[in-house]
């Protein structure tokens, strides 16, 4: 049972960035080549801007806001210096109101990041001290009014001042009380401390009274995670920015469990409680929607669905609806209870059936992303130590548990392989992958497809040797795949274009695509080896076609294929393993193009030519001819 079922499953982040002389003091880079004027405040702004952009993509319904404190100017909704009466929150400047960001706000924040003058204007430190109690209550009011009933509300404080109120007891205890208010409201304070040049940030001076151990939303969050120590030590601006970015990134999304406090059954009558999290999830661009252009500015139209009966078009109430399966041209219907019962295989559980070596798990035995499992003490005290022992055992012996996994009551059971994953950290000691267990859902017999027939021609040793050299030349750094290095190019491009359209900017010309292979490097490092492999391939192919017949799971193939491949002959100094008559086709198409007789070519030839260039071969002949023409013109 979810105890906070009444909450809306959204997240609101409010940045509170301190503005002071030291925060605005640029920290020059030690590397003379990189002349940058990054100050802690601008670094914090860049982070906020980065997070804002990122969340538009990843969490389009979550809110973000930016509040400066310690500023000379004050602004809170319709209050500022010019309004009558006292200011409620002096030296607090609400720059971006807490909301789902609009294109305009993105632009405003960016111009603040880029435009020095404006920075000077807004980011002018006040001569007076700001009261932290006031800052915290200001945040409280923003959360209370703008993000009521959110499941997760977080205040990100970025500051280099570890002791804002010195020994002033009254101010200190006022701040402590306001911090407790935030805690009771369900707002989590995350501190991003920045050390001053000559002195480390000491949280015990003030902030340990402000920040709480457990998060009010997630009392199970085991112990408090220390802020990344490195953030505090960076002296120059660039590394300060990078550290801050990685630190904020690692907390960019609030932790949400996919399944909370499910039983992990190690054996009959022996259960512990765990929670499951989704750490991998394919991020897709948001679906397109309908926009109404009849108003002052474009507005998103909200779709409302009403259900009607097909026979008389009368509107239907929900209770009338019955589920039925089509069968033999008719409907076979079940009552809602029966319908539910069909998927009911018992209470949610992760039950261990036995253990097996990890090496036995076939590479292909996979159907979707895994679920991450971490212990919780909510239902069983002592879960963590048993889980820890299991984790260590599986990790040490490279074993997996076969589990029967029912995530929710109607989810249907899955057989899974539960493996241990070691904690991974980056160079700065920031966690990249957490320690815990992963459940990999296995395919059922129904999900396994048979291999199609294939021509099998096992390569002889000399050819394999050549290929081995090529592969050895092209290792990725450290021989590992690091997903962080590969942003999804189509996702990034989609939002890059949207941003340009929304802000009425020029469209970018060329996408940045980090998934494209590094062609120049491949040529440089492996080019010669590739050529020698290609020669070897020709040699081996000649021997094979001369001597033995091919091994194949297919019936005998017509002999003419061999002939065609032979005709292609050994290419001079051009590596081509196509083996097909691709070379001929290219020449053929080229010559017809020059003569202007492309339409005389057969559809099959055109298609083969297009496919060989990775182009779509769909459409009528005229379309194909047109496409080939375009291609050749561009050359």
């Amino acid at each position, binding site marked *: 049972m979810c105890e906070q079922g009444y909450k809306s499953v959204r997240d609101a982040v409010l940045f509170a960035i301190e503005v002071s002389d030291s925060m605005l003091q640029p920290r020059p880079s030690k590397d003379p080549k990189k002349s940058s004027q990054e100050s802690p405040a601008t670094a914090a702004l860049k982070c906020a801007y980065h997070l804002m952009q990122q969340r538009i*993509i990843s969490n389009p319904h979550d809110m973000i806001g930016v509040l400066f404190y310690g500023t000379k100017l004050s602004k809170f909704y319709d209050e500022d210096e010019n309004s009558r009466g006292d200011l409620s929150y002096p030296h607090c400047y609400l720059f971006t109101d807490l909301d*789902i960001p609009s294109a305009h706000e993105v632009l405003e924040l960016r111009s603040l990041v880029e435009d020095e003058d404006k920075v000077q204007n807004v980011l002018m430190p006040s001569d007076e001290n700001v009261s932290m109690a006031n800052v915290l209550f200001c945040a409280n009011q923003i959360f209370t009014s703008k993000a*009521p*009933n959110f499941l997760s509300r977080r205040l990100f404080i970025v500051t280099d001042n570890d002791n804002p109120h010195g020994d002033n007891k009254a101010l200190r205890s006022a701040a402590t*009380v306001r911090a407790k*208010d935030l805690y*009771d409201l369900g707002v989590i304070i995350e501190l991003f401390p920045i050390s001053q040049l000559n002195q480390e940030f000491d949280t015990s001076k003030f*902030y340990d009274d402000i920040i709480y151990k457990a998060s009010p939303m997630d009392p199970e969050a085991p112990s408090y995670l220390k802020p990344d120590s490195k953030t505090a030590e960076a002296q120059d601006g660039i590394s300060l920015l990078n550290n801050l970015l990685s630190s904020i990134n690692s907390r960019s999304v609030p932790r949400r469990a996919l399944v909370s406090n499910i039983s992990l059954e190690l*054996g009959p009558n*022996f259960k512990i409680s765990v929670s499951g999290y989704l750490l991998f999830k394919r*991020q897709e661009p*948001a679906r*397109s929607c*309908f926009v*109404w252009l*009849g108003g002052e500015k474009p*507005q998103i*139209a909200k*779709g409302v669905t009403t259900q009607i009966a097909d026979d008389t078009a009368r509107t239907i109430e929900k209770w009338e609806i019955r589920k039925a399966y089509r069968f*033999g041209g008719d409907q*076979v219907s079940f009552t809602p209870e029966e319908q539910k019962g*069909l998927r009911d*295989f018992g209470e949610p559980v992760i039950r261990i*059936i*036995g253990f097996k070596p*990890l090496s036995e798990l076939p590479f*292909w*035995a996979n159907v979707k992303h895994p679920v991450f499992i971490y212990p919780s003490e909510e239902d069983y005290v002592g879960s963590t130590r*048993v889980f820890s022992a*299991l*984790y260590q055992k599986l990790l040490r012996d490279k074993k997996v548990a*076969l589990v029967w996994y029912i995530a929710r009551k109607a989810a249907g*059971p899955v*057989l899974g392989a539960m*493996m241990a994953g070691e904690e991974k950290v980056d160079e700065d000691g920031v966690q990249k992958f957490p320690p815990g267990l992963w459940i990999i859902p296995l395919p059922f*017999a129904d*999900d396994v497809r048979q291999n199609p027939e*294939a*021509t*099998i*021609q096992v*390569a002889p040793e000399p050819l*394999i040797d050549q290929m*081995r050299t090529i592969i050895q030349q*092209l*290792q990725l750094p450290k021989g590992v795949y690091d*997903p962080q290095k590969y942003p999804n190019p*189509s996702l990034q491009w989609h939002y890059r274009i949207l*941003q340009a359209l929304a802000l009425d900017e020029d*469209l970018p010309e060329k996408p940045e695509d980090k998934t494209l*292979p590094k062609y120049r490097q491949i040529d440089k490092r492996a080019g010669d080896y*590739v*050529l020698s492999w290609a020669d070897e*391939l020709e040699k081996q192919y000649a021997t094979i076609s001369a001597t033995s017949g091919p091994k*194949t799971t*297919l019936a005998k193939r017509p002999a003419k*294929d061999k002939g065609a491949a032979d005709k292609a002959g050994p290419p001079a100094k051009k590596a*081509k393993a196509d083996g097909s008559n691709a070379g001929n086709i290219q020449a053929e198409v080229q010559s017809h193009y020059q003569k202007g007789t492309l339409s005389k070519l057969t559809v099959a030839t055109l298609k083969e030519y297009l496919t060989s260039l*990775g*182009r779509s071969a769909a459409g009528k002949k005229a379309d194909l001819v047109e496409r080939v023409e375009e291609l050749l013109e561009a050359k």
Partner: protein
Amino acid sequence: MADKEATVYIVDVGKSMGERRNGREITDLEWAMQYVWDRITSTVATGRKTAMLGVIGLKTNGTNNELQDDSHFSNISVFSEIKQFLMPDLRQLKDEIKPSSTDKGDAISALILAIQMIITHCKKLKWKRKIVLITNGLGRISDENVDDIVSKVEEDSTELVILGPDFDDSEYGVKEEEKDPRKAENEALLRSLSEQCGGVFGTLEQAVSEMVIPRVKAVRPIASFKGFLQLGNPHDYDTAVRIPVERYPRTMVAKAPSASQFVLRSDLAAGQEGPDSITTIPETQPEDGNPLTSVRNLRTYQVSDENAPGGKIDIEREDLAKGYEYGRTAVHISETDENITALETEAALELIGFIQAERYDRYMHMSNTNILIAQRPNDKTSLALSSFIHALFELESYAVARLVTKENKPPLLVLLAPSIEPEYECLLEVQLPFAEDIRTYRFPPLDKVITVSGKVVTEHRNLPNDDLQDALDRYVDSMELMDKDEDGDLSEAPFPIEDSFSPVLHRINAAIRSRAIQPNDPIPPPAKILTQFSQPPEHLLETTQRHLEKLIEVADVKKVPPKAKGRKRAREPEKPLSGLDVDALLSQEKRVKISPNNAIPEFKQTLALAENIETTKDAVKQMRSIIEDQIRHSLGDANYDRVTEGLGVMREELISYEEPGLYNEFLKDLKEKILKERLGGDRRELWWLVKRSKLGLIDQRQSELSDITEEQAKAFLSAQ
């Protein structure tokens, strides 16, 4: 396209089939029909027009077939010609299959008739032909023309299956004692017939018992990509390699059939009143067929407009343009720019680089898997790909590649692994995560505890001591899943993939089929085979029992009693990292009144510091007027989220402090005020929100001290 199929079932419905034999609770005919219905309904379930079947009744009272003029063919009736079977055919067949009052009728003649029916229907065309004969082998069977049958069956490569109750089968282990000599003779005749034409002859018991093994639907492989595996850029470099490959799925989740929505036909629905009657299907079928009609979705579009009544206006679909959301800004995309946000790509599988297999974490697999084979049929290509597969294998490496399956499709990052089997080589492919696909939730280490002060501790109640680790190690080692071979030696068993069947898929299929033939019977429970992996194997449990007992003992895991969860009275007050007693500060501050703009924290704090029930009651009273004010002053639904939050917090807190009555009393009053429109007009939408957010009365399940039953709580929410 699957092949066309024609199957003829010959069912013995003789008088003797209506008897119960050898201690069975059902008649032989009912038993035989279990098998026949299973086969027929699985054909119907495919919904294929080209999967046809016909049914012949043997030993029927009357005679009805195209050869009936010949006396050899008497007491044989064609129940159904060869056709696609639909529900009405099933119903009709059900009525016709009944034990007759005769045991006359020749099985061999029925076979000839079946062959004739198939010839008439399929002519010389390409069909998969099959005849299934089920008989108890009693009654006279003539052995004339057997050779003709054999040659005809072989000529058309018809599959022949002959089954019967209590047929002897030494392989399966059935031998009927005191067998009727006539039956023995007939069995011998049918067996030799079936052997001569390469058919199947078996005992019914085996056929019925094998019915529970789900049939896995074979899917014809279809290439999802045909293109080049590329190393380097062939446009710009002469050193680029291209190997033509084809990609086929290796795994693909078989989806259970999905139900569609229906309602009772409007002319029938008129008689229905309210939700109570929905579970009863009308007893009598209306004469003009189906009582259900399908549900259509009607979509309308609205935008907000401050000047319109209700704040919203309807917009026609034609007046809307396509667009996307960028934050809360609507970005409109004109039709001519439709693909402006799509990345231009070229179809190819391009190698990015190589990684060490042992340094790859198996949990990064993101998708189903595919295989890549050399384009067929092409020796040189096979040779080239084979060298790549073997080189990867020898280096214990995987390849990382960028895959675009079609022009302008989004690129995918995939991992390629070599697969070498005795007769098959291919690359296995699975999708990898992009940077955006990773959620960086952080968790503390599991092998050590880091305290708030940053100290690393290795002995802690959250860490196993040596005893626990040792007990767990032993238990895990004893639970290794192994196969026993004939000699009783243990060997490593593969993962049980080939004999694990999708429980939901087969459960639903079985239920549909059962409901189709027996509409009034309850749904049978799931077949045992579907839950065979829901528990550890029995033999393992026995041998590991003592290890488990030891483990339970040293683990000392204690279940948290349900009531203790979330109970606040006994709990330590939450403290900041420094451990400072903020409550002490708060009590000094003396917040006498809960201020509306900081209501939730102050309400919580008042309750935490309350020394007597009066304080609690007073706090609830204050909250009540704050919430009522919020409702009264809400412009439309502006304050509803705040109200929901306030109610939710009150409900939670009052459950924890064991004062459910205070909340219930408040909510009853609030409901009345809302329904009587005393809080600033029509607030029914808010009540709907309360319902949806499950903020109703606290019932006895949630708090023992409540005097509201679950039913009362339910009724309270739904009653108007």
